[in-house]
């Protein structure tokens, strides 16, 4: 039952209860994977669905992600190497010339909420930084954000650089002016209109 309580507490944005119940499950000897997948991650999946349906607002999604993260912090030291790595690693940032980070931060939080290892390079990120960090971390996906129409070309040059470096790392893009058509045009592997969709896109690319 406590797994369900963790799930409910994430949906209630209740960080204190998530922490307490997660600790209780750990103490009771419940499998870490079960707490993670059935309690925390599946709750965030529902949060994502509710957000996409328009039933939750961005701040509520963020609060849920924050509550989820509090539980995740307790689990992290206990995760086996394989479990920790199994979900995948994402390098994320807002492209060169663009200082907008709200959307990018949302995606990063949702990725963490889905159990991915997230390396956030921040805003105004140089093309080289994406490439070298992804190589260092052995990233599965590079996620690029842009709000300005004028910085969209920086997405194209970053994707080009990844390909020229001969890396197998996948790329996804997002941001207000970005469309699926633009993603296809510049050769991105994935696109999403919102943060929960970005999680889905990454899951598809890694699976």
């Amino acid at each position, binding site marked *: 039952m406590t797994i369900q309580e963790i799930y409910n507490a994430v949906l209630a*944005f209740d960080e204190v209860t998530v922490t307490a119940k997660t600790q209780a499950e750990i103490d009771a000897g419940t499998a870490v994977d079960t707490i993670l997948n059935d309690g925390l991650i599946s709750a965030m999946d529902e949060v994502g669905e509710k957000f*996409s349906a*328009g039933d939750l*607002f*961005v*701040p*509520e999604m*963020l*609060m849920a992600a*924050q509550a989820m993260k509090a539980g995740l912090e307790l689990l992290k030291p206990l995760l086996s190497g394989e479990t920790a790595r199994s979900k995948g690693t994402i390098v994320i940032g807002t492209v060169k010339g663009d200082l907008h980070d*709200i959307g990018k931060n949302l995606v990063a939080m949702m990725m963490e909420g889905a159990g991915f290892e997230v390396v956030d390079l921040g805003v105004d990120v140089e093309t080289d930084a994406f490439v070298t960090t992804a190589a260092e971390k052995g990233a599965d996906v590079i996620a690029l954000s842009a709000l300005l129409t004028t910085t969209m070309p920086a997405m194209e040059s970053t994707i080009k650089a990844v390909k020229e470096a001969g890396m197998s790392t996948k790329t996804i893009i997002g941001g*207000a002016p970005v*469309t*699926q058509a633009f993603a296809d045009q510049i050769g991105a592997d994935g696109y999403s*209109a*919102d943060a929960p969709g970005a999680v889905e896109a990454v899951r598809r690319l890694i699976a």
Partner: protein
Amino acid sequence: MSSKGLSGGIYKPLSPESIETLHDASLTLLEDTGITYESGLEETVAMLASAGARVDSGGSRIRFPRELVLEQAAKAPSQVILYARDGKNDLDLTEDKVHLGTGGAAVKILDLETGEQRSSTLKDLYEIGRLVDGLNHIHFFLRPCIPTDIPESEYDVNMFYACLKATGKHVMSGVNDEVGLEKIVEMASMLAGGEEELRQKPFISAITSFSISPLKLCTQSTKIMQACNRRGIPVALSAAPMSGSTSPMTMAGTLAQLHAEQLAGITICQLTQPGAPLLYGGIPGMANMATMGYRGGGVECGMMNAAIHQLAAHIHVPNYNSAGLSDAKLPDAQAGWEKAMTVLLGAMGGSNYMHHSAGMLESMLTVAHEQYVIDDEIIGMACKVLRGIDVDAEHLALDIIDTVGPAGNFMMSPHTMKYMRSEYFQGNGVTDSKSRHQWEQGGSLDTRERARGIARKILQTPEKSYIPEAIDQKIRQKFNILL
């Protein structure tokens, strides 16, 4: 959050001097020009004559001394409460408190599934009632369409029955004749637990179109109006002259004539039953000068209806009038702007009971399910304006700004969580604010299609009768219920 009963009075098309001028002009009209009547009203005319009205020797003109009019108008209650049976939609009609709801006597409906225009039925009336019951910003249910599929002799009882079964909101309708009124009062008393209970908390009321503009009493409606006065049933003194045909072409002339008609009607009601609950029912409108039909969607409808509220408020009587009409044939962009204009102006004006405000198209000829959904949104937004902007320490949020600090953001502030669903209007879902991508994924639906989806969803919820089964059986034994 309820949007009913908020205070308007922030749009005043008439200056205090103009109100005085119009009021005086109306009293002069009643004194000098007077009103006329048809045969059958002898008792009413005799009542007026004995109170001091001058009836000319030919017996066709009644002139009112202004003292008589002012004395009787002062007896009309300044507050009328129209009750609801759902425990949450009582209407406190007084001062500048604003309520908006349905109205009309449309004979056509745009079919929810085919989108085609067809004649309206008793079942349509019932379904629209259920739809309105599920829409939060439509504050009352005034019978909006005529059941053209049943005999006219069965209208009165069946229209009220369909409305009372479908919704717990206040129900108002016109009545065909005095016999119909008797039946309706009997039926409503069965629901109330007795006629005295109904009188104490009237959850039905009647529209009586006593005045045939210009300045003529309608015999049948005047009699029904007086019968309602005697029974304590609240009445709306509906009169709807059209500038250019049944009132002068000008707005001021239309208002002066209409206010005179109202003062005459109020005088009759108060002489019939002092203190009788009534709504000043002036509905100023315009003729379509190209066709001589009714022009519902003009922006001046909003202006004149706000002005008539000022004239009603001047004599301290709550008012019934009109907003939200459109001459558009479909729930299209024109319908949107015409309705938004007159509903917003009406709400800002402070009219107490604005009918026609939801669901109507083609002036007063056609209703559409989806239009009720759209108009619920328009009414909700217009009433939101009346809430104004709260400026206090909590809303100024200086401590929150300080905590977040320069270059931070407010997305996860508890203050944001507290106010994000209440500070700004949250609609019924018909307004699209999705990204293009999401909108395309949802089927690229336009306003009308989104509204139809919401209407279907409401109508698909399990039916809930507002008439208890035992009483329903008694009503069906007593009356010829065709629903």
